[in-house]
């Protein structure tokens, strides 16, 4: 199975990864190979197999609803690039 340049460019935008024209050509080949491998897997008969959500044969433990965390804002904000009034500052984004 092949993947188009447009698909690669779209996925790159969604993943916020910058790729230039040359890289797209290389990725076309590499990703195409990966998709071929997936195609081979798809050939296996899985009709009687239930889709798996997790490789471990275990179920999730739940936690009681009790506050266990304390305020550590100062420690976390010490490693943030910019803060003010207790807020983390980020480049302006308005959707």
């Amino acid at each position: 199975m092949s993947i188009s340049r447009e698909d690669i460019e779209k996925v790159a935008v969604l993943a916020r990864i910058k790729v230039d024209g040359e890289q797209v050509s290389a990725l076309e080949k590499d990703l195409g190979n990966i998709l071929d491998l997936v195609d081979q897997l798809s050939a296996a008969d899985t009709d009687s197999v239930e889709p798996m959500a997790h490789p471990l044969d275990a179920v999730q433990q739940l936690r009681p609803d009790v506050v266990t965390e304390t305020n550590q804002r100062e420690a976390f904000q010490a490693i943030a690039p910019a803060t003010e009034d207790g807020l983390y500052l980020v480049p302006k984004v308005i959707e």
Partner: protein
Amino acid sequence: MQWDIVIGLEIHVQLATQTKIFSGSSTAYGAEPNTQANAVDLAMPGTLPVPNEQAFRYAVMFGLATNAEIGRRSVFERKNYFYPDLPKGYQTTQLAQPIVGPGYVDIDLADGSTKRVRIHHAHLEEDAGKSLHEDYHGMSGIDLNRAGTPLIEVVTEPDMNSADEAVAFAKKLHSLVTSLGICDGDMSQGSMRFDVNISLKPKGSDTLGTRTETKNLNSFRFMEQAIAHEVERQMDILEDGGRIVQETRLYNGDRDESRSMRTKEEANDYRYFPCPDLLPVEIDDAFIEDARARLPELPDARKARFKEQYGLNDYDAGVLSGDAKLSAFFEETVEHGKDAKLAANWIQGEFSARLNADEKSVAEAPISGAQLGALVTRIADNTVSSAGAKKVFEALWSGDNDDVDAIIDAKGLKQVSDTGALEAMVDEVLAGMPDQVAQYQNEEDPKKRKKMLGGFMGPLMKASKGQGNPKLFNEILVRKLGG
């Protein structure tokens, strides 16, 4: 051309847990920015989520209350998108295997009929943080206290056909989750947020039209306005021969305007996949039965009981049973005031009017059900007239005095109901008004007679310094004047 309106809703309900869905951080509202955002909430490397049992319990209670199938095995997935108030770069949510499967809610319509609105499913997910776009040197401020707050997103089938029906459903859902105690229902703090999907189709057609989604409506009034606005916008386009573009829109309630946020072509591709950090959650019979045992009386059952137990009419029972806190207030009033109809009238009249005027919720009311009940008792046993009772209510509300009987004494509002004393006053007043008495006795028309009777009441109330029981005065007058 005549059009059918088709509406489906997605409702985000914030669950009233103490802690977040995947961490032990507090969810208390109003804390200083980022003081309740810890390593898991901030998506620090090496942290792992552990789901909150209470969030599952609340979701299961919601499922049981909406006649839904409970997802015995539910799976969390990652919904991937980039936004600064979402530290992980994905929202942990459920997609193919949600905790609550198909169910329904019945709503009462204005014409007295009932309509069933089907719920497609409800899933558990985490809320995002808040972005503050005020100017921080050209940057945005991020508060992550809300990040990780548990939500259930309730998705309905497109079963509503007017703004009234959509609002009736939204109110019913609000009444349900607050009665269950799984959500505080405070819309102004974003505890419930509505997305409305709207499409139009030619009347009677089976084919659905292209829909738009209007996001993030946080009051019933805005929801009603946004639907009216969007229906009109779509109708104008269709009647001009245009085509509706599938898109997400934002509605500005203050200006009654909407604008496109993104179209289908620009729609996010969320690339969902099962979250490898979380195992499937299995819910067993014991968990479900425990949740069932915690279900309180629900609004429909409460309404039926109010009609049966207190003899309320359908309207009064509907108003008083809808809100869990108002219901409790009503029952406390009746417990202390006995006369349920009178209690219902005072709560829907004076009490609700004062709450609205002061913009207070029932929980913030300065008077208790016990106090209103004591006042109702004094109205029912004729100690105070209804005009006097309003003065007592005012004194209770302003906090001048918290005891009904003490207020009645202090303000001299006690009605004179001693028949002997009242008769003496009537005799005296009638003796001073011989012309009016003769006029009354010569009048044959019972309607005019009744009206003339009122002419004696003024002097009587004056003679009794406003404290004579008007009902008794009336009875005595009719008897003395000869029918």
